[in-house]
């Protein structure tokens, strides 16, 4: 039965996250962007809120009930409304946890998940993207080859969040033409972590380029064991998560430019009283809502275990374009002021541009 009404639990989560985003993230996001650093204290607070452990079932030490991509995308929108760098930092462990939860063997779940249910922040990440043109997640150039009871990883990765601090990471590699995940623990021989990358946006999020030089991984570390994982489902989950975050970033930019347009006076009246500005804002509102509802539908399909490839791909493409347009227009509504770093719209504009790049950088 069709319904667009979040459950009471979901509404409570949204309210709680919105509060956190308003009281904590929004207070420091500009400083974080300028300094390139996120205070540990805010990451601790977010950890204590249980964004990660609430996704993990009780039998592995978590507090979670059934994992829901829909609930996670509601949460992701609110966090991203607060700040995208911090969101990706806070949710980085789920790049590891969610695939293990969805695709891992029982042994992998028992071995790795409990560590994410404690009081102390457990950093983890995943490495998918590669530093070359025509990157295609389903045709990776990083390879995994089975040899004498283990796997050998070769190749380069980029945009790996928190790689330097991660206790474990999921590395995606091409095994006989298929993309599979491999759990690589901190300090693995043959894993070289490069310098921190410098990006146009998400400047407060540390990301790294990695090289795998004959990096040996025990055979039991292949995600899902011998039968492997269904990477397509993970990609779809990632598309939904990123779409929800794009909606959050766009909404932040829309709200700010809307409020600005209502108070900024030109020719004797607020600029929002002119259709040239008002219609931009109306279109921004429409596009944001449309993308959000599309993301909900794709998330709902994931939760129902339906093949969401079409819906997830469509919403990802749509949300990528939407967030670019909305953040661009937000800068435009502010005119010269939008270009100045005293206002946040330029930051959202830079972050918004990234969504066409951020393949696999979030998962729910």
């Amino acid at each position, binding site marked *: 039965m069709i319904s667009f009404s979040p*459950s009471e639990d*979901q509404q409570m989560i949204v309210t709680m996250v919105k509060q956190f985003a308003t009281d904590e993230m929004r207070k420091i996001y500009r400083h974080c962007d300028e300094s390139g650093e996120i205070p540990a204290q805010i990451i601790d607070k977010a950890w204590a809120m249980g964004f990660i452990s609430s996704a993990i079932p009780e039998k592995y030490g978590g507090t979670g009930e059934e994992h829901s991509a829909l609930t996670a995308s509601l949460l992701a929108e609110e966090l991203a409304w607060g700040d995208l760098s911090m969101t990706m930092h806070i949710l980085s462990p789920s790049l590891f946890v969610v695939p293990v939860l969805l695709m891992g063997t029982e042994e992998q779940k028992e071995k790795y998940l409990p560590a994410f249910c404690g009081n102390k922040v457990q950093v983890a990440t995943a490495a998918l993207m590669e530093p070359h*043109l025509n990157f295609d997640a389903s045709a990776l150039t990083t390879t995994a080859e089975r040899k004498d009871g283990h796997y050998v990883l070769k190749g380069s990765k980029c945009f790996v969040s928190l790689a330097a601090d991660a206790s474990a990471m999921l590395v995606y590699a091409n095994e006989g033409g298929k993309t599979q995940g491999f759990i690589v623990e901190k300090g693995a021989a043959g894993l070289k972590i490069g310098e921190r990358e410098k990006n146009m946006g998400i400047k407060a999020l540390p990301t790294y380029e990695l090289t795998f030089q004959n990096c040996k991984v025990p055979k039991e570390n292949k995600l899902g064991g011998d039968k492997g994982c269904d990477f397509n489902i993970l990609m779809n989950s990632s598309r939904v998560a990123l779409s929800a975050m794009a909606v959050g970033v766009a909404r932040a930019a829309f709200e700010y430019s809307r409020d600005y347009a209502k108070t900024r006076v030109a020719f004797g009246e607020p600029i929002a009283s002119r259709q040239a500005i*008002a219609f931009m804002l*109306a*279109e921004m509102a429409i596009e944001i809502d*449309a993308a959000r509802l*599309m993301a*909900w539908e794709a998330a709902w399909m994931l939760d129902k275990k339906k093949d969401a490839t079409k819906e997830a*791909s469509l919403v990802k493409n749509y949300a990528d374009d939407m967030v670019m347009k909305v953040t661009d227009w937000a800068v435009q509504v502010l005119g010269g002021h939008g270009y100045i770093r005293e206002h946040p719209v330029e930051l959202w504009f830079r972050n918004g541009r990234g969504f066409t790049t951020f393949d696999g950088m979030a998962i729910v």
Partner: protein
Amino acid sequence: MIDFELTPEELKVIKDAHEEAEKFARPIARYYDEHEHDEPTEFIERLWQQTLQGQGGSMIGLGVGAVLRIEEACWGDAGLYLTAPGSGLGGAAILQSGTADQQAKFLTRYNQGNPKWGAMAMTEPGAGSDTAAIQTTAVRDGNEWILNGEKIFITGGARAFNNPGGLIVVWATVDRAAGRAGMKPFVVEQGTPGMRLEKLEKKLGIRASDTAAIVFDNCRIPYENILGSPEVRSTDSGSTAGFRRAMATFDATRPIIAAMALGVARASLDFVKEELEKQGVKIRYGVPKSKLTAVERDVMDMESAYKAAKMLMMRAVWMMSQFKPNSLESSMAKAKAGLATSRITQKAVELMGPLGYSRKWLLEKWMRDGKINDIFEGTGQINMLVVARRVLEFSSRELK
């Protein structure tokens, strides 16, 4: 709980409506496009029989299933869909503004006897989107109202005018000086002296549907045919009860127009995908943009625009079925669906080349048909204005 699962009943409604559209609308779609004012008698009779069996739907108070049925019907043919007998937009206004007695008196006829039509007359030669500027007057004379003025662009106006049992809801002012406050809806029965069918319009598309101009020349109607209160009251917001009711009618009808638009858009989209598949082109979802062909990207853009509009439409309808105020959401849906359909149908003609432009196929027709959805029941721009005022919390004075 957010849910996108259609009920078995809704799925059946869609399936039946789709089969019906395929079997009965598609085969005659071209004929009634080329023979603009011919009457599709058999088609109408078929629809009427369904209405008599309780399978028809009024224009208002619709649930998700009914709106999805409209999408399928317009996938078949939007022009033919608009010929469907029923109380139409006139009925929507009566349901929105009429008393229980008026509803019983005017609406029960729509599921008995011969096929009948209802219509709504709002637009005038000098007043389109600016509905508050209408010039048609209603003057009280004892137990009667006397209507004078000219109404144009009345969808289904000729069928309502010509067929016994028809009625037209006419918006007229009882006090021009009062502006919007003076605007009232009046029910005029078919055959009332002083009401004259002036003209049948020739249109770009939806040619099976009649669009009429009707003149009211000292047209006398019973006093009790006014819908709602005859009093002219001003309210703080500068708006008024009568005008608000007119606008409330649009809240209910805009999602329906969005559904109609989506039916036409999907007809084009389905055709394009089928033709591409015949030529060995299958759309590869989940492949990076840089690896897609231009055609694949175009089709995916069309599909996601369709999807975006559909989601907005579904939300607006769902809100209506839950009795939640949906003025913002229905205008969002209408603005998006109208524009998306124009773009999708135009792109479809482009992508299919000669297949698209030739009248041998229906793509060029769908492009012409689809365009109406960006115009009637409020142009795309008027809907943007409604959305803008809502999101800015600006009155019509603050945002003109």
